[in-house]
């Protein structure tokens, strides 16, 4: 029988380093895609992946498969870590430098891989009209849409990533979808000014 995420993280916390290697292999692609959809360049993607799994390693003993995450799938938990990592990346250069020093032994993408990641970032970039519509949403609603639509989480899982309960997540998701539908089907094709500009896209 396959080891569950909880099994792997519990083994990691007990000192089984190879278990964390298996955990990384299992979830690398999901975290990679999460980062690609939200980072401005390949270097940030590589850092985000490394920092997220370092964070997971440091918190392995505190992982719980209960609650809204009853099947033990660690993806919402990992995305929650990744979200905090990306927030740190955007905060300040000084703070970022401190983080980088902690990560000094992590590898980086080679030139071919960096090119492939840059291409994936370009492919994941939203069309201008869609991006403008998304920017009119509140940041948490925007992230809810992305987690459910792009990262294939359930509304409850997406809510867990953002620190809201499942019912709240469903209601906000429904409203956000309705707003997007309304904006994108507007007869005159104009969109209101974005009250909540998205920082990562603005950094591109």
């Amino acid at each position, binding site marked *: 029988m396959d080891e569950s995420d909880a099994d792997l993280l519990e083994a*990691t916390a007990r*000192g089984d*380093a*190879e278990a*964390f*290697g298996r955990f*990384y*292999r299992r979830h*690398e*692609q999901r975290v*990679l*895609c999460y980062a*690609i*959809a939200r980072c401005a360049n390949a270097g940030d993607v*590589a850092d985000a*992946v*490394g920092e997220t*799994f*370092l964070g997971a*390693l*440091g918190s392995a003993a505190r992982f719980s498969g209960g609650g809204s995450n009853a099947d033990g799938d660690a993806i919402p938990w990992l995305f929650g870590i990744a979200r905090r990592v990306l927030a740190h990346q955007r905060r300040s250069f000084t703070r970022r430098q401190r983080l*980088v020093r902690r*990560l*000094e*032994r*992590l*590898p*980086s*993408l*080679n030139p071919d*891989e960096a090119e*492939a*990641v840059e*291409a*994936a*970032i370009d*492919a*994941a970039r*939203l*069309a201008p009209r*869609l991006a403008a519509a*998304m920017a009119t949403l509140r940041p948490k609603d925007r992230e809810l*849409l*992305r987690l459910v*639509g*792009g*990262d*294939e989480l359930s509304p409850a899982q997406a809510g867990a990533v953002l620190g809201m309960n499942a019912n709240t997540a469903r209601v906000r998701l429904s409203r956000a*979808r309705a707003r*997007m*539908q309304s904006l*994108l089907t507007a007869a005159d094709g104009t969109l209101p000014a974005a009250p909540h500009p998205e920082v990562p896209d603005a950094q591109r």
Partner: protein
Amino acid sequence: MLSADRRPVPPAIPSFSRDMEQALVAVARASSPARRARSVRRAKWAAACIAAAAVAAAAGVGIDHAVGSGPPAASHPPAGHAVHIHVAAFLVDTGPGGTVTVTLLRDYAPDPSALRQALAGAGVPALVTVGSVCSAPVPSSALNQVLTSRRHLADGTTILTIVPRAIPAGWELNIGYFQVPGGNGIHVSLVPEGAPLTCRSAPPFVTG
């Protein structure tokens, strides 16, 4: 509904994946309480080996001769003996096939004695010099068999893969370490143990 409703297609990054997994496992290993305790014990064991070798040398008895007859062979750790020594400046890890991986981190000049002891514990006789490199006439093919891989990561880290059993008996590895603008300069050569050496303060080339 939305064109955003799709996950990005993950690009192929096999080298990054492999390196990242290895790095994370190394960090996990280093941060395990049990491993930390074992690493400390191994460092002490390596130090004890050095001390024993020094005592044997002072007594005029070669360690290799003391355990058997025949020509001297390069010293190796016991079969199956794994070494993982992780300190701020470097990591020394034994790997599959008897290889030893040495990771020298940027911005940290290693304590030559500590690195030498760690390498000795992993079966690599080494002369570690900071700010100078030593050389001796030896075919480059011999060094290529000993130093099978040498990588410089973008963050300035240098990773050497060493095959201890390929080090000729009576020879040791000289790791000359330089701090240069933008990274580490590492020069590796084979030198005869205990023989007078030609050392110089300028690296023959600078990397990193």
